[in-house]
């Protein structure tokens, strides 16, 4: 077998469907699926209630993961702020956690934390670390030297400078990082179903939903709306906490 053929073979075979892949069609969705429509409005109206719990679960997953990720990443930033030697390892470490696909992370944790919500949360938090850490460091680095010099010369202690000057001025970048992290987490949390963590993914993958377009669309739609809502709220928060950025003189 020539090398090229050896490479092409897997791709060619890839079309073969693996076993145990398509789940059984659930009887309650059958009427809608039988019509082969993309989106059944009637079914949607009737069954909208079943999305309540998954949505709440999803919200919780996202909120807890992002808050946990923020707490850890922020702590990292404070540590690395005055210790430049910490920065490369922290950046690399959080980078590795970011690169590993979440679904793989869920199952890397399997021998340690098993299945369940905790596993999902750990993996989702880990994913947010790099974004938040990096943005916080950039925000702090962007504080003008003259402002820090003036603050020091006026008699603020290093701690006062950090909390009263540097962090407030870094807020836009920090919130930007939070926004990216949150939106990404909402999308990825759909995978939590694989870890047994619940969430909207259950309405896409679990129990006969896998080839039920209406449910996929609804669940996906809710996820996207949630992401946009979080984004909007954080954007407004950013605007509210940085009144000095409005109306600058040319």
């Amino acid at each position, binding site marked *: 077998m020539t090398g090229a053929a050896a490479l092409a073979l897997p791709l060619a075979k890839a079309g073969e469907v693996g076993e145990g892949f398509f789940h059984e069609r659930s009887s309650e969705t059958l009427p809608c699926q039988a019509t082969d429509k993309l989106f059944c409005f009637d079914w949607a109206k009737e069954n909208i209630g079943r999305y309540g719990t998954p949505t709440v679960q999803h919200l919780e997953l996202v909120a807890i993961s992002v808050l946990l990720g923020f707490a850890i990443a922020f702590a990292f930033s404070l540590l690395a702020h005055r210790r430049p030697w910490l920065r490369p390892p922290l950046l690399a470490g959080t980078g590795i956690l970011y690169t590993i696909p979440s679904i793989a992370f869920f199952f890397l944790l399997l021998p340690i934390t098993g299945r369940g919500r905790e596993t999902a949360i750990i993996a989702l938090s880990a994913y947010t670390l790099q974004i938040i850490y990096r943005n916080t460091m950039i925000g702090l680095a962007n504080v*003008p030297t*003259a*402002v*820090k*010099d*003036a*603050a*020091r*010369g*006026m*008699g*603020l*202690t290093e701690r*006062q400078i950090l909390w009263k*000057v540097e962090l*407030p*001025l870094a807020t836009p970048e920090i919130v930007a990082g939070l926004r990216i992290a949150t939106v990404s987490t909402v999308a990825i949390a759909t995978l939590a179903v694989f870890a047994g963590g619940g969430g909207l993914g259950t309405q896409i993958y679990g129990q006969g939903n896998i080839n039920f377009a209406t449910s996929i669309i609804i669940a996906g739609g809710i996820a996207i709306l949630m992401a946009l809502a979080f984004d909007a709220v954080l954007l407004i928060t950013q605007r509210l906490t*940085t*009144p*000095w*950025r409005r*109306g*600058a*003189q040319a």
Partner: protein
Amino acid sequence: MPDPEVTDEVPSADASAVRYENATKRYGDSAEAAVERLNLEIPAGEVCVLVGPSGCGKTTAMRLVNRTVELTEGDVLLDGESVRDRDPARLRRETGYVIQQIGLFPHRTVAENIATVPHLLGWKKERIGARTAELLELIGLDPELGERYPAQLSGGQQQRVGVARALAADPLVMLMDEPFGAIDPINRERLQNEFLRLQAEIRKTVLFVTHDIDEAIKMGDRIAVMRKGGHVAQYATPAELLMAPADEFVEDFVGADRALKRLALMRVSDIDLWEAPLAHVGQATAEVRAKLRGAEVPYPLLVDSERRPLGWLSERDLAAETVAARPDSPLGPLLDLDDVMRDALADLLQGEAQYAAVADHRGRIAGVLSVEIISEFLASPQAKTEEHGAAERPH
């Protein structure tokens, strides 16, 4: 007018002296010190300018006072107390600090910026508010600007806020590092003048760093010209510096136009003016011609009934019986007693006149100025003893 209730808590004459005693700053293991054994005494209430080429250590020397740069050896005494004995943060709350890029806090309003140190010192809200209002007025800013953010102000306004912020807690000493360096020349002059006006009122001890010798001469009561390593080549008043530079370095630094620079320090009123024979309209020319003999200025000046100069009379004018209302030659440049000497000379040269009439503040003739008078005066011993403080000098 500042509120009397507040001003008596702001003692203006309570400015303090700064003394460097063998102050040395060495970075790392380098053999050369940034500042080497500096000995300097700055009297209270005066503006002392540290001037010199880049890298001479003037900024480093200034920063030794508030310990934003730490001493390697030697000492700096602030109001008699060593800065080493003070906690740096507390020390800095008693020194005003103004830097070139200003460094206003972008995320705080102008009023909040000014209130920074009083806040740190735990002043009560009312006191801070009163002080802020007072300072805004002092620096000539509209009180409503207090609620704006720095980004909404012009460069000149920002710099003024920077000065106000440094003055807020009524510090013992003001440290100013090229504070007007980043401003355009027109506004820089305005800011310098305003600072001098302010200094005339509050009389702070100021340590001012600049690389611009003209600024040093304008702003300083005393100037320390520094060489590399923070070595003081000369520490003197501006007039002394201009008239008697200590060595070639100082001479080069001050510039070849020393004499002209001196003229910036004087007013026309400092000089003994010559007198021109005066003529009135309708006067008999014979009288006028009689006055001409032996006069200091060989041309008669036509004045009105109030002794206000109208023009110069020529030979042709004197040929007539009486003095005509319209003189032959126009008045030319008309100077004022309060004019800065350098500007007066410029006017003289520009008008291509040999003599220029000088009037007092009511417009009445006070004397006549010429280039000859100026150069005679510069050479005379009398000029050497004239010395105004920076705030009283023409600016």
